[in-house]
């Protein structure tokens, strides 16, 4: 019974009954504890709050009512045994045990939480390694010539394993190209590009020289694109948004910045190299730089002009120096050097003067061009004035023409004016007639349009919401599936449930103890049997010896007086011995009776009859008192 009690107590604790640690069996349960545990059980089974207090109330009648209610609930749950208020209030161990066994059995299983942690990833890895090694150790060896690319398929289900490295190759990635944006109709792909995509571009698996490089190349493409995207997002979030520019502007600005910096560095380097030697290549670089600068800045023509002149000057320089070298050939090195220096100096001066002249000229050119512009402007204003004046002149001429026949002409003119005014009025009327319905129609259409627009917007909104929902639901489903998988795996791994195994262990223990006990009982039985046998044989022997001695002594007693006495003694001895044996047997019987009675007493005492009686009497008295007080109250009221 201890095992059962333990299981019951553990289950009660898991559903949240406050059972102290010292309590190890149902015998130690107090009435309060029994009631509160039973209520807790019922609440857990029905999964709702029931109208039962968790603790025993003070009033006797309330107690009685609560006991009856509890009994009713348990009967509703399907308890077959006898149950009533007395089961809880005046408890009896075996009955309480039965009730709790029933309740614990009905407890929902999921409340018994199984908090086994999922296996750690390191353990999983360990296991995976172990299984791979085991599979490989168990697979037979075959000659390398028989393996395709040194791969073998082993195990069930077949898994591949590499047993050689002849098929290995280096990670070699090359640039891949594939059409993009062909599905997006809003983006216009240039015709040439399109025809290149259609006619010339090979399929992506057919682009590398070696087919083996296809996979690495594609992987590399993916990785680089993802990292570029990430990099851009980072930059945009950290700096781009702060600059309050649109994406294109930001990019353009960045490009400009980089170009500027590039140009600056190159320029500096060029200066440095110019100090060392004014070589032609450096000059070229200067050109490149200026071109680059011109591309970024607006003054394109100016820059290029500058470079042109520079080129010109330089070319002249070259010519001069060539001539110089030809003329100075016969002189010594030093002289040459000197001359050259002088020449260089002279040339430099010349260059400076030329460039200053050039600057001046430039300035002049500017001035002139400004003058030209001014003049042009003047010309346009003049022509405009001219046209206006011509118009004026025409009007004036006509009025002058009309002057001689003034009155007639005035009347004519008046007529024309009147008729045109009338015409205007009728036209206005007509226009008004047409206008009103048109305006109305316009308004209607406008309204309709706005309605439609708002509807479309609404629909768009709805679509958005639906899409969101769809995604959410899909996500949900996926996560649930994953959970299911996870739980399934857990469930599989948990087959040897801790609790279950504990129970089975305990059951096995109980079984073994029962076996042991049975063996003990068997042993005792055989012992008693053998003792019985011994007793029987001994008594038989005794009987026989007694008859023999009896006969012997009886024969002798006829002749001898003393022997007669001995015979009498013998008879007495025999008789008293028999009596003794009888007494021993009687004691045995009595002892057994005593034991039986003791058992009975224990059984009775288990029922706590006395204490229950006492409780009942005290409860009875209390009830009486309550009744009396109530009667008094009623009397008072009446």
């Amino acid at each position, binding site marked *: 019974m201890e095992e059962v009690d333990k299981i019951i107590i553990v289950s009660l604790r898991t559903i949240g009954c406050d059972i102290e640690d010292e309590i190890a069996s149902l015998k130690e349960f107090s009435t309060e504890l029994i009631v509160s545990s039973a209520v807790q059980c019922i609440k857990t089974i029905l999964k709702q709050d029931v109208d039962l207090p968790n603790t025993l109330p003070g009033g006797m009648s309330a107690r009685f009512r609560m006991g009856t209610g509890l009994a009713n609930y348990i009967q509703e749950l399907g308890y077959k045994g006898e149950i009533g208020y007395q089961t809880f209030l005046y408890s009896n161990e075996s009955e309480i045990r039965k009730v709790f066994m029933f309740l614990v059995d009905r407890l929902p299983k999921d409340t018994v939480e199984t908090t086994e942690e999922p296996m750690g990833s390191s353990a999983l*890895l360990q296991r*995976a*390694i172990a299984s*791979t*090694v085991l599979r*490989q*150790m168990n*697979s*037979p*060896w075959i000659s390398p010539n028989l393996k395709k690319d040194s791969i*073998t398929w082993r195990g069930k289900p077949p898994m591949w*394993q*590499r*047993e*050689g*490295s002849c098929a290995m190759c280096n*990670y070699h990635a090359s640039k891949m190209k594939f059409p993009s944006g062909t599905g997006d109709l809003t983006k216009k792909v240039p015709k040439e590009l399109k025809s290149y995509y259609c006619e010339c571009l090979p399929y992506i698996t057919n682009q590398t020289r070696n087919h083996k490089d296809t*996979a*690495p190349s594609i*992987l590399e493409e993916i990785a680089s694109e993802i990292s570029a995207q990430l990099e851009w997002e980072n930059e945009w979030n950290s700096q781009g948004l702060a600059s309050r520019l649109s994406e294109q502007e930001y990019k353009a600005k960045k490009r400009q910045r980089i170009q500027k910096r590039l140009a600056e560095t190159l320029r500096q380097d060029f200066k440095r190299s110019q100090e060392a030697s004014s070589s032609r290549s450096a000059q070229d670089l200067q050109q490149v730089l200026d071109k680059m600068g011109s591309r970024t800045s607006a003054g394109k023509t100016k820059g290029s002009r500058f470079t042109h002149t520079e080129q010109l000057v330089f070319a002249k320089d070259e010519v001069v120096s060539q001539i110089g070298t030809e003329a100075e050939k016969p002189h010594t090195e030093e002289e040459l050097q000197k001359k050259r220096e002088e020449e260089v100096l002279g040339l430099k001066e010349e260059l400076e003067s030329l460039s200053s002249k050039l600057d001046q000229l430039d300035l002049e050119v500017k001035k002139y061009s400004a003058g030209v512009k001014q003049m042009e402007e003047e010309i346009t204003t003049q022509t405009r004035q001219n046209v206006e004046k011509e118009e004026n002149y025409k009007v004036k001429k006509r009025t002058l023409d009309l002057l001689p026949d003034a009155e007639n002409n005035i009347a004519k003119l008046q007529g024309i004016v009147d008729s045109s005014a009338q015409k205007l009025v009728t036209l206005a009327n007509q226009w008004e007639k047409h206008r009103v319905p048109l305006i109305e129609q316009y308004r209607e259409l406008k309204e309709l349009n706005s309605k439609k627009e708002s509807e479309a917007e609404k629909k768009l909104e709805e679509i958005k919401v639906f899409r969101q929902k769809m995604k959410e639901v899909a996500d949900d489903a996926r996560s649930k599936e994953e959970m299911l998988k996870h739980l399934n795996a857990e469930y599989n791994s948990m087959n040897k449930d801790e609790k279950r195994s504990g129970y089975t262990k305990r059951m096995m223990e109980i079984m073994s103890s029962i076996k042991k006990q049975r063996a003990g009982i068997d042993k005792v039985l055989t012992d008693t049997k053998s003792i019985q046998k011994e007793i029987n044989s001994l008594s038989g022997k005794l009987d026989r010896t007694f008859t023999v001695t009896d006969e012997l002594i009886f024969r002798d007693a006829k002749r001898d007086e003393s022997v007669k006495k001995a015979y009498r003694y013998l008879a007495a001895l025999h008789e008293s011995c028999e009596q003794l044996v009888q007494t021993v047997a009687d004691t045995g019987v009595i002892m057994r009776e005593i034991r039986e009675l003791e058992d009975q007493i224990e059984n009775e005492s288990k029922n706590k009859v006395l204490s229950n009686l006492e409780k009942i009497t005290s409860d009875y008295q209390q009830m009486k008192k309550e009744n009396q007080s109530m009667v008094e109250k009623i009397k008072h009221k009446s």
Partner: protein
Amino acid sequence: MLLMFEDQHKEHLSFLTQVSPDVVKEFCRISMEFIRKGTNPKIFQGAAQKLNVDVDTVHHGVEGLMYLLTESSKLMLNEIDFQDSIMTLGFDEDTRQTLLEIYLQNRREIRTILSEMTMDLPHYHNLEWRFDVQLASRSLRRQTTPTVLFKLHTEDSGVKDTTILQTDPVNLLHLTKVLDEALQEMKSPYCRRIVRNIK
């Protein structure tokens, strides 16, 4: 098996028959020294002066002894054969005994020195191993590929060399099995019979 002496060799050694066993012993010591470390002509001169004989004679004597010792060691002459071989050289009993002792003492060393001179193949010196599991690579994440890495140390005429090798469990088992069989082959009756007969 007996050692056959050429006439010239006999002549060279005949000098030693004329001197006392102690001198012979000294000569033997010098010969061993020379076998170990190469000849040193200065010692010849000293010995020649001491014994009051020609340098060439001493030279020939020592070289003759060296030849005698190496040749007999090369052929792995046993005691009796060695004694029988030098019988013809006309040494007296004591000297022969001395020579025999010296031969027996030094035969092992001489053979080691000789074996160092022989042709050598790259041979096994040591093997280190370790067990790795490849868990991921640049192009394939999530794998468990067990590999065994070997560092094989070989030696060729004193030059050490290492080779890095790898294998997988299947081939490792195969390798072990085959080489173990090779090792067991030496203990087979057939091989044992051959070993017995060649000796």
